[in-house]
């Protein structure tokens, strides 16, 4: 298994999805070696975690943010800072090294960062490769064409792959549209969530102020997201303005960091709703969990969201969700509100309805929570095992 990150050293959903999938697969008997581009202690016992270091490098340090540069420390003591493309290249070389000393039945790679390495592994080992698509370049570019280099790597890899796994029908459709890959080469394996993985909420919420305001009749709407173009937060703020005009006692909590941070701050000010919008920055742990828990409604306004695990996390922590129809989670969660990402008025209409009617909030949550408790990663692991069996039966030498 080739991946770019695992918790707790993850920047977002990719690391979490990889971790949960592998855990569920190993429970069902899969023997997994997970190859990362950096060395760190993850405290994982159910599989082997290997750091793929290029020759001569003794240590790679990564920062918490996706697409940041890594620090490569060489055995002779010198240090190089590499950008994302150099990292992809170094990772590919390191994985190629590994393939000379080991045997694998299947190589399963997650997202474009590891796809070149997967192609090298296929070349060296003559084994089937499964490419798992958590997002494609169009998602990350917020619906635009994106970076031609990433696009190129994705296109080439999809052509050569034995099997492609997409995290939603939404993503599968985009792979077909953008890269002309035949439909029957792509399987949809939805992400999921395991309720026993949830850290329990303690009775003491971190957001004292918000709770006090709720006591005075205010309602809280939260978005938990990287502040990046893909996530559609400007639309959310425009909708927020319309909500505040009709339901002034509404507060919007925005949790996360990213390159749009200042832009969003300014936009909130320009819209005249700075008093109602609270930015928390990047959060982990209890403060992050409590943000879900304190809210009356969670909103995921993404322009294109391959899956959107946050919507399920919100439900798990006690808050119903409003998601865009351009998301994978909209395919698995029935009891949530759904809007088109561009339909600001409809987003405002639905948010207003929830903040004005506790019965809507409560009925939504009661029913979505019932759905949530039925979800698990087990079904996703079963589908993957099935794919492995199919691929290896024909391709083994």
């Amino acid at each position: 298994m080739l991946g770019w990150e695992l918790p707790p050293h993850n920047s977002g959903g990719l690391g979490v999805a990889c971790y949960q999938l592998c855990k569920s697969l190993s429970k069902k008997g899969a023997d997994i070696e997970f190859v990362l581009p950096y060395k760190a202690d993850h405290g994982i016992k159910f599989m082997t975690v290997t750091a793929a270091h290029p020759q001569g490098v003794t240590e790679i340090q990564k920062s918490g943010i996706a697409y940041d540069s890594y620090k490569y420390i060489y055995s002779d003591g010198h240090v190089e800072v590499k950008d994302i493309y150099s990292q992809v290249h170094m990772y590919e070389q390191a994985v190629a090294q590994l393939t000379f000393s080991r045997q694998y039945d299947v190589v399963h790679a997650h997202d474009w960062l590891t796809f070149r390495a997967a192609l090298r592994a296929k070349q060296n080992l003559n084994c089937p490769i499964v490419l798992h698509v958590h997002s494609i370049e169009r998602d990350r570019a917020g619906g635009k064409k994106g970076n031609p280099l990433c696009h190129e790597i994705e296109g080439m890899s999809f052509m050569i792959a034995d099997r492609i796994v997409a995290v939603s029908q939404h993503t599968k459709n985009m792979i077909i549209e953008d890269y002309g890959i035949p439909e029957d080469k792509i399987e949809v394996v939805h992400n999921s969530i395991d309720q026993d993985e949830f850290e329990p909420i303690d009775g003491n919420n971190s957001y004292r102020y918000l709770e006090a305001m709720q006591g005075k009749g205010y309602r809280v709407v939260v978005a938990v997201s990287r502040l990046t173009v893909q996530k559609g937060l400007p639309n959310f703020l425009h909708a927020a303005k319309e909500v505040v005009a009709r339901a002034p006692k509404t507060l919007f909590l925005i949790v996360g960091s990213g390159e749009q941070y200042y832009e969003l701050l300014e936009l909130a000010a320009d819209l005249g709703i700075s008093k109602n919008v609270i930015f928390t920055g990047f959060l982990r742990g209890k403060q992050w969990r409590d943000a879900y828990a304190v809210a009356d409604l969670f909103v995921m306004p993404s322009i294109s969201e391959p899956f959107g695990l946050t919507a399920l996390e919100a439900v798990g922590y006690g808050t119903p969700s409003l998601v865009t129809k351009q998301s994978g989670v909209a395919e698995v969660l029935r009891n949530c509100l759904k809007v088109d990402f561009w339909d600001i008025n409809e987003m405002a209409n639905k948010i207003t309805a929830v903040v004005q009617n506790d019965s809507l909030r409560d009925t939504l949550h009661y029913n979505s929570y019932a759905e949530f408790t039925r979800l698990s990663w087990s079904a996703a692991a079963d589908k993957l095992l099935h794919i492995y069996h199919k691929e290896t039966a024909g391709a083994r030498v």
Partner: protein
Amino acid sequence: MSRAIVLYLHVHQPYRIRHYSIFDAGVDHRYFDADYDHRTSNERIMHKVAEKSYVPTNRRLIKLLNDHPEFKLSLSITGTAIDQMEAWSPEALQSFKDLAATGRVEIVGETYHHSLAFFYSKEEFENQVNMHKKKIQDMFGQTPKVLRNTELAYNNDIAYWADKAGYKGILAEGWDKVLGWRSPNFVYRPAFTDNIRLLMKNYKLSDDIAFRFGDRSWAGWPLTADKFSHWLNESGDATNFNLFMDYETFGEHQWDESGIFGFLEHLPNEWLKKEGNTFMTVSEAIDAFEPVDQVDTPFTTTWADAERDLSAWLGNGMQASSITALYELEDRIKHCGDLQLLEDWRKLQASDNFYYMCTKWFNDGDIHAYFSPYENPYDAFIAFMNAYHDLLFRLSEKGVEV
């Protein structure tokens, strides 16, 4: 001793609320005027149902009435269904008038707006029953003598009310919890009443036609008129087989392709083959047969779901809070003197609006059981509450405290 089929069909169309958003509230007061192509377009739905169900079914019914002097049936038609036919399908309305003109089609009374007003405001309930009575007199030249409440919602109180109001009969679900070991195929007397009689739906036989007719996995499929008549003939002691169902069973719930029209065309012929078999309207059955027992119904029954209660309309928090909010406006709406506002308030009372908010089947993923023009129950609630907010806006424009 004769045995009668008492066929009773319920005709109804609500005014569905269009996609009515918070941006419409206070601006555009037309809640029911969706674009023609939209799922919530009442005009489009009326055109479709008239074409697939009302017109072809009535054509067959009138032929049966002409061919068989013994053939009779009863209908209930809500005021809102009649209004929509007047506006969008005069042909369908005329075909119902033609049925009534034969003198062998009895019209049953109910609320004009297909509401659950009985459970929220006795005064409003009486208003709507009387509005409906007037409309039936104007349209069909008869006065309803038998009453049904919306969704066949029934209990001792409703029977008591109908008795005092002078109705000779009332209709209810023949639910096992109420009947116990007794059969629905007789006339009964509601508890605590003097003169009124109770006819209870034989839900097994009715649902064979209404729900199971086209189901190929059902042991009774294919259901033919002679098979069905045979079942009735073999079913032991009975005076009246109460076959109560939605009119739209014919052509809409069961499509033409299922053979439902052929079944209807042949039923009288097959049933009347046996000596003593006949058809009766609801009033005729009440006149013809003495009640065999008294039926006590201290709780409310309906003709819906396995539960046969009101939970499909009032079972979740959204339903309970929205219907309560609506009826809380009654006094203010009635005293503000705005007839259009009063009429819109009444259209919003249609039980259908609350049914669309039901989450019990939606949650089970059984989308087929979920008859709704909305994407999900939450959208139905949001549209309803926005219309409610607009009612408040209009009241406040009139200087009424809201």
